[in-house]
């Protein structure tokens, strides 16, 4: 136990020093004139908890110490511009490194699954034995399930332990915004790569790049069917959701004709699993120059409809893939997109009814910075309206569970995060599990119905009384004793409770033992909001 503590402390110190280096080398992402200031005065304990609950996946003692050490300004700078590879504690890093999705390249995994599928087909065709084909098909399904489960584990490990907490929250936010569900087709194979390559690197970067990265990834191309959108075989699905859910928002001014134009523009935008070095498919010489291939992404000009298109009231001047670029530029630059993204961010971080002035400020920052996400977030988080509204955001299950675990165990790394995933699932918000492209909603009424409150208290009880399940090497192994944290002993927990209602404190005072105290603490109304 003692050696273990020392290890995690040194990891924290290391992460802290790297952050400072990162701060020094990073210019502020927005111009000085538009950069909002944050209070320079030292924060009270309650204010620190509020900042941590908003910007991170949940306050913990070590995060609190770090915020005190750096001061708000530098801490927020570091959150907005983290190092490229945020340093996880060694034990978390090792768990991620041991996953198959970390050890094998996407190309390798894809080839392997394709070969397994082929073997199953062959077995069926050749009538090998009884149900050999079925057995092999089941094996493929199991393997795909494992790959998606590993992606969940990796996301939860990063969310719990990465020092780049805002980047992790934004990774979840954008995964939800550009939602892809593992319930469709082959997305289980691609989901981990989608998050790691298309979303996380851009989570605090530029929105236009993020949008394009999601568009180019096989997960999105499969999920919203654009991989099958071709000249003469138009499929509107992705074009519509691109406008409605990813950028401008429904009712913002685009028309059915714009959806159709966009579907034509996006013809030929797909992916290929042929060897990266393989020659391009045969096509008319005039089309060859326009063909593109990068990784799995493929723009197949022979599938593209070159007919001129009018989008949002203006003709597109460019042709071929350049027209896709021009269309995305135009869509991202439209005021509707700035407004839509700003509002969605304000809903996620602040409250169900963000003050209009706050949304305007945020949208202006988005437009001014040409979609710089960090600059947009800085404007949002440091706006006076945001500072004035604290504790208005009802936690969704993800925030609720991660917050409880971070508070309870801080930097002690779980050896098995599957129970965390189970607690999130139990409340109806499984990672990559939202079937439709709109992603999970965030408002209180979406998560606070009677059935959901009951489910949340069940989860609170499990975390309060049996969360040692996180520290078993094997699911069947005995639990360490006691099988729960002693939350009341935490200084930050006590600092919180001091601010609570008389009714909540009364319930806590009546707790007969630690599991009861934990259960009431985690179930209290004050713990439902951030």
């Amino acid at each position: 136990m003692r050696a273990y503590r020392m290890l995690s402390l040194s990891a924290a110190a290391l992460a802290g020093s790297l952050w400072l280096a990162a701060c020094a080398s990073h210019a502020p992402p927005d111009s000085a004139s538009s950069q909002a200031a944050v209070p320079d005065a030292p924060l009270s304990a309650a204010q620190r908890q509020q900042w941590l609950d908003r910007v991170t996946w949940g306050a913990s003692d070590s995060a609190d110490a770090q915020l005190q050490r750096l001061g708000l300004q530098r801490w927020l700078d570091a959150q907005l511009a983290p190092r490229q590879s945020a340093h996880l504690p060694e034990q978390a890093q090792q768990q991620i490194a041991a996953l198959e999705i970390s050890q094998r390249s996407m190309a390798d995994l894809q080839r392997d699954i394709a070969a397994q599928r082929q073997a199953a087909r062959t077995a069926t065709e050749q009538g090998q034995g009884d149900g050999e084909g079925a057995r092999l098909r089941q094996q493929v399904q199991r393997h795909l399930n494992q790959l998606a489960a590993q992606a969940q584990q990796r996301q939860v490990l990063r969310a719990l332990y990465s020092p780049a907490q805002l980047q992790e929250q934004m990774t979840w936010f954008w995964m939800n915004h550009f939602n892809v569900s593992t319930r469709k087709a082959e997305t289980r194979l691609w989901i981990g790569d989608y998050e790691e390559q298309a979303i996380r690197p851009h989570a605090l970067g530029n929105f236009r790049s993020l949008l394009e990265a999601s568009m180019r990834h096989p997960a999105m191309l499969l999920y919203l069917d654009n991989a099958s959108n071709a000249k003469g075989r138009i499929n509107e699905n992705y074009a519509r959701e691109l406008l409605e859910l990813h950028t401008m928002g429904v009712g913002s001014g685009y028309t059915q004709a714009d959806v159709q134009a966009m579907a034509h523009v996006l013809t030929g935008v797909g992916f290929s699993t042929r060897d990266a070095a393989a020659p391009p498919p045969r096509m008319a010489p005039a089309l060859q120059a326009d063909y593109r291939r990068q990784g799995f992404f493929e723009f197949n000009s022979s599938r593209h409809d070159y007919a001129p298109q009018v989008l949002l009231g203006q003709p597109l001047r460019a042709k071929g893939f350049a027209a896709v670029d021009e269309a995305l530029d135009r869509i991202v630059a439209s005021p509707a997109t700035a407004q839509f993204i700003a509002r969605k961010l304000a809903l996620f971080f602040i409250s169900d009814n963000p003050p209009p002035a706050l949304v305007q400020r945020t949208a202006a920052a988005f437009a001014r910075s040409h979609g710089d996400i960090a600059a947009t977030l800085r404007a949002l988080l440091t706006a006076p309206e945001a500072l004035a509204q604290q504790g208005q955001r009802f936690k969704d299950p993800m925030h609720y569970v991660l917050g409880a675990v971070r508070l309870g165990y801080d930097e002690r790394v779980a050896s098995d995060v599957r129970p965390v995933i189970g607690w999130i699932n139990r409340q109806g918000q499984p990672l990559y599990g939202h079937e439709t492209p709109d992603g999970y909603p965030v408002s209180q009424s979406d998560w606070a119905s009677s059935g959901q409150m009951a489910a949340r208290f069940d989860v609170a009880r499990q975390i309060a009384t049996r969360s040692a399940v996180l520290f078993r090497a094997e699911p069947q192994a005995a639990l360490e004793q006691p099988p729960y944290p002693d939350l009341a002993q935490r200084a930050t927990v006590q600092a919180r409770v001091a601010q609570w209602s008389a009714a909540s404190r009364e319930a806590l005072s009546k707790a007969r033992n630690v599991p009861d105290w934990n259960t009431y603490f985690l179930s209290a109304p004050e713990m439902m909001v951030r």
Partner: protein
Amino acid sequence: MQRRHFLSAAASVPLAFSLARARAAAPRSDTPRFLLVFLRGAYDSNSLLVPTHSDFYYDARPTIAIARPGEANGALPLDGRWGLHPAMEGSVLPLWQRKQACFVPFAGTDDLSRSHFETQDSIELGQPLEAHPGSRSGFMNRLAQLLQGRIGMAPMAFTAQLPLCMRGPARIANTALANVGKGGVDANRSRAIAAMYAGTALAPAVNEGFAVRETVLRGIQDEMDKAGRDAISAKGFSLVAQRMATLMRDQFDLGFVDVGGWDTHVNQGGASGNLANRLDDLGRGLATFAQEMGPEAWRHTVVAVVSEFGRTFRENGNKGTDHGHGTAYWLLGGGLSAQAGGQMVGEQVEVSEASLFQNRDYPVLNDYRGVLGGLFARMYGLSPAQLQQVFPQAAVQDLRLV
């Protein structure tokens, strides 16, 4: 002990009245019951209800059309003009033949966004499109409000999240039925937790959450006991439908459930395939529901199956269908009228290229607010003024369904 606590916890909260009757006594067998089944994702009604008389249908869908009756894997003949998807043979066709099922083709809403989410919301709100955006109560909530004063409604959403159409001033409980389990917070702890919420905005939901868990667990105890002994138990929507039937027979009289997976842009299939599998699961579930309700309660029950919009009449380039407009609603019940049971109901139009809306989709001739409003008026004896509370400014269409 536990039960007594639930009673007292709920009693202390005036708003938690929706379960009052559910705990006090079972609804009488002749209490009208209504279940709304929302197919999210815009199901392709042209595969469920095949216009077998229309050559245009077969021209417009070269790979995904359902063959004419009598042909291999053909549609099940309904009335000489329409056929039913063959996956419905063992489930919904018998209900139709017993005059316990009818369909309203060319149904839907005037919302033309063709957005799943926008249209689902506008339907669930049940208000005219130009309604003030501030009014966010759903039509089933307003119906519950209206009836709670009169016949002590016990409404319930059988979903993990409370659907928009049940949100609003009337407290409505919810619980997903696919994974009902034990392992909840015990009586002492739930009392302590409820006390922390006393006087807060969340108190009604918290109290109701504890109460409804008990109600639901009690309701499906039999089935869970059997499932523990028997090898086979229902799966998917059938399991949910079986549990819903038990609860609606014994406890609740206004229900909502949704079923997803209907967005078929690619390879939707024909007589078999993706959509056929979804329809099969849905049909079996609905037949299970009818059966489990028992003949007495079923006679006073109406199930409406709706979806946000229909799909394009012509198949797209990927053997699928894109977002369209008009769709078909289903109404099931043991007490459908002679004018409705086993009939195609509502305004109709010849299925031809000329009658397509925007040369793309089915037109909407039967507005969902008119159809459901007409149904509610008959089921609950609502006055025109009361109907206006449920569906403001709607022109009610009395299809004499019951």
